[in-house]
């Protein structure tokens, strides 16, 4: 079986810093892969290169049978990859509904004539979209479904994270890249969010997830497999328990020379 996402000798440099160093990665279909490593080891850069925010210096990226090396961000989205950001990146003045629906861009009719002149047809599409957004957010927090047209600016971090995940899931991507979804949340909140992501995945077994996360409890509980990065290089790979016991990994994390 071929991997859903595969990179070969992926390289990314920033001046003298080698953020990704000939990285070979394979993400199997329907797995949850943990991507871990110390700060600055290249995890976010990996997401940025795959999703077309940065271009690669060398190497290849294949997704679902197609070469997407250096594809534009929007082409990557259309191919079925959705990512979240390490720092929350919601559009604060916009409503919950708006923030979620912007993730469903490819399913909404973007033609000028349709949007401006065919308001009745637009209203039907709008009502369907409302239904989709509501159904999704109810999995995470039913109270938010009642406040869909309020700005997100006033919401606490846990709700913002929920909305970001909904925005990622609304388009039913094949691959979800989560960059430290627990950042800014308490332990319990993180656990709750992870359970909700699990619930969604129960319904959609075809969702593959790569998650970057510092809370090792989360990684241990939810991932099928882990890849450990250090200085942009893969230093270990396997089940969490095994990589955690790896001497090289411990050294990387503890900084023991």
């Amino acid at each position, binding site marked *: 079986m071929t991997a859903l996402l595969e990179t070969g000798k992926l390289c990314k440099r920033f001046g003298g810093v080698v953020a990704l160093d000939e990285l070979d990665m394979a993400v199997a279909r329907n797995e949850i892969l943990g991507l871990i490593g110390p700060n600055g080891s290249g995890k976010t850069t990996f997401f940025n290169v795959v*999703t*077309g*925010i940065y271009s690669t210096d060398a190497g290849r990226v294949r997704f679902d049978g197609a070469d997407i090396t250096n594809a*534009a*961000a*929007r082409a*990557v*989205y*259309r191919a079925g990859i*959705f*990512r979240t*950001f390490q720092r929350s*990146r919601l*559009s*604060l*003045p*916009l*409503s919950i509904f*708006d923030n979620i*629906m*912007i*993730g469903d*861009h*490819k399913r*909404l*009719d*973007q033609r*000028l004539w349709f*949007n*401006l002149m065919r*308001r009745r047809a*637009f*209203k039907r599409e*709008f009502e369907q979209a409302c239904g989709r957004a509501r159904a999704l957010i109810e999995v995470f927090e039913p109270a938010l479904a009642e*406040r869909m*047209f*309020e*700005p997100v600016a006033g919401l606490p971090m846990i709700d913002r994270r929920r909305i970001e995940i909904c*925005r990622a899931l609304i388009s039913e991507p094949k691959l979800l890249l989560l960059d430290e979804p627990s950042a800014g949340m308490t332990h319990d909140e993180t656990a709750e969010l992870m359970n909700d992501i699990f619930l969604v995945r129960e319904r959609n077994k075809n969702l593959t997830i790569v998650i970057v996360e510092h809370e090792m409890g989360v990684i241990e509980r939810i991932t099928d497999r882990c890849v450990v990065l250090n200085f942009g290089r893969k230093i270990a790979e396997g089940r969490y328990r095994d990589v955690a016991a790896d001497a090289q990994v411990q050294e990387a994390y503890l900084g023991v020379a």
Partner: protein
Amino acid sequence: MIDKSGAALWPGLAVVTIATGYLIALLAAERETVIIALLILGIVAVAAAARLKLLDAVHGSFARHEDTLGRFAIVAALAVAAFFHDDHFVMLLLTTVLLYSVATLGLNIQIGYAGVLNFAGASFFGIGAYTSAVLNAQTALPHLLVIAIGGLLAALIGSVLLLPVLRTRGHYAAVVTIAFALLFRTFLEVNDVFGGPQGMQVKGMTMLGWSFNDNIEIGGVTLSLYMNYFVVSLLLLIGVFVLTQRLERSWIGLNLDALRLDETAAACFGLDIARWKTAAFVVGNFLIGVAGALFAMVGGFVAPNNYTFEDSLILVSILLLGGIGNPWGVVVAAVIVVVLPEKLQAIAEYRFLLYALMVIAMLLFRPSGLLPRSVRRYFPGQPS
């Protein structure tokens, strides 16, 4: 949360009625002391209403009954025009307000929605105006077509700015538009084809043999010739206003907001950033050009001095004052910015200073403008 007190229609009706009466009084006032007293009264009344939270009720009323109140506002505009039907000066002023509103709505699509700064608004207005001047003099094209061509030319010539506008972000793009505004003026001044610094006369509008530059006689009542232009400009404003609202309340409005607020994230959500910025910039310039083309026929005269960088700043200050992104705010601010200096001759000389102070005060105390844009409601009455 649905604000129950905001669901009533009457606060909206009351405010439109009071504002209409106030505007008539202000326009009719001749003595400087009366005008100043009225202005102070207006400011105090608005401040008091804000204090007493009355404005929230008005806001809710507009959110719920926008269509009804919109129609009522049209009636109110016609009432003001009826009151001053034979007053050339006031009718010209009112027509100016309408066309400045149209131009600023174009600017609003660019700056307010797409976040593309444009400090050359007056230049695109001028392209439309010179189009009217040249085509009305040299050709027999129907004048409505000339107005459309004015818009198209503004959009087309504006497209030379697209590359820098798309390539650079934020303030650099703004600098490019400023450079364009300065170049445009110089270009007009040195070109004798366009009358040089003296400018050109513009033939008035005719439509189906109806000359707009004659007074209208109906049953012994004489209407100012500007009534013709007022009606056409009002129709134009209504059309542009409705389209602006529909644009904002659509997926396209959502796209523009998303890319203005976070371009990188928007690209990750599949948006074609260049396409939407281009569309917003081109459509905005088209609307500004259309307003300019019609305005030239109203004024009967174009000159480089009328389309300077300062005039562009006036358009921007209307947008800032009214509330970026809110078409209602644009119209209210256009009334204030256009009418005030004309009524207060004492300040006319210092009007740029006044605008600057107004904008600074706005940015300091009420950065989202007099009538801030609210969260998107795709359809009226939808809970907000």
